[in-house]
């Protein structure tokens, strides 16, 4: 599957890592819900590190849509809330 890390580009990640990414998804959602900045930072860093290590950067000349869009490494909790529609965008 194709995964985009915002501000960084796209990676081709083997489908076998889907479950692992789901675990990260839950952890990041929990950190966002708790509002704890250190938890959020740690889970986001772990998630992006895994994508970078198991994924291969897509060549620049490749033009394909992503299956998954992930926050940028410098994203804040508020930004992730906005990006995921938790704040305003989709009616709260």
């Amino acid at each position, binding site marked *: 599957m194709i995964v985009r890390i915002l501000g960084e580009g796209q990676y081709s990640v083997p489908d076998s890592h889907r479950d692992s990414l*789901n675990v990260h998804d839950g952890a*990041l959602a929990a950190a966002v819900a708790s509002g704890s900045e250190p938890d959020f930072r740690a889970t986001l860093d772990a998630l992006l590190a895994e994508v970078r290590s198991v994924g291969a950067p897509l060549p620049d000349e490749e*033009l394909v*849509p*992503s299956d*998954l869009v992930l926050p940028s490494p410098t994203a804040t909790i508020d930004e*992730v809330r906005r*990006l995921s*529609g938790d704040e305003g965008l989709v009616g709260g």
Partner: protein
Amino acid sequence: MAGLFSRMTSIFKAKANSALDKAEDPRQTLDYSYEKQLELLKQVRRGVADVATSRKRLEMQMLSVQDQADKLEAQSLQALKAGREDLAREALSRRAAVLQQQADLQTQLSGLQAEEEKLVLAQKRLTAKVEAFRTKKETLKATYTAAEAQTKINEAFSGMSEEFSDVGMAVQRAEDKTAQMQARAGAIDELLASGALTDSSGLVKDDITVELERLSSSSEVESELARLKGELGQLPAASAPQIAAAPTPAPAAAEQAATEEHP
């Protein structure tokens, strides 16, 4: 994939899809879309250049703040030499306040530099993708029927839209950040101009400078006086009492009194 990531993905894509128009017969709009991409790419380049310019201006401002801090330190030393510890303390506490603000901004500035480097990379990636789109559109126009091309073109469009949207957001974020930092640097500038500190032109004098100048001019008066007294001391004793009765010229005395009243 359920949850947070899938919500992020669909919201991002909904936004990205509005970045580039899609057409009924995609083949006809390939050229139009490419023109539009070139235009957007130009905007991105301008954005990245603006961020670099703002960053450089902030760096210059940080340097001038450092100059002010150095000047305050020199002033505190001067005040101490004149025996005015209160004035020295005031200069040092202003210096600390300015340095604190400068340090905060400096941290943000380093973050901005890192972001700028990423933007330059993103811009390079975007340029490569636009070039890839150009090649691909020629192939698609030559090889496929409209129906066959549809899927491939849609895919290329989506890929491009995502890239533009991603880079566009990153540029916007960096621009917002520089604007915030500019506002904070502006606040320091205002502090410098408000009389609390001198501006770099040296035309506006702050209260510490005024006080130090007054101290030095009154001490000059004192030393002149001492010199005159010394000269008079060599004169016949008869005229000495008369002069001793009015030891200091009136203006200097008033100034000295004012200094003592408002330390």
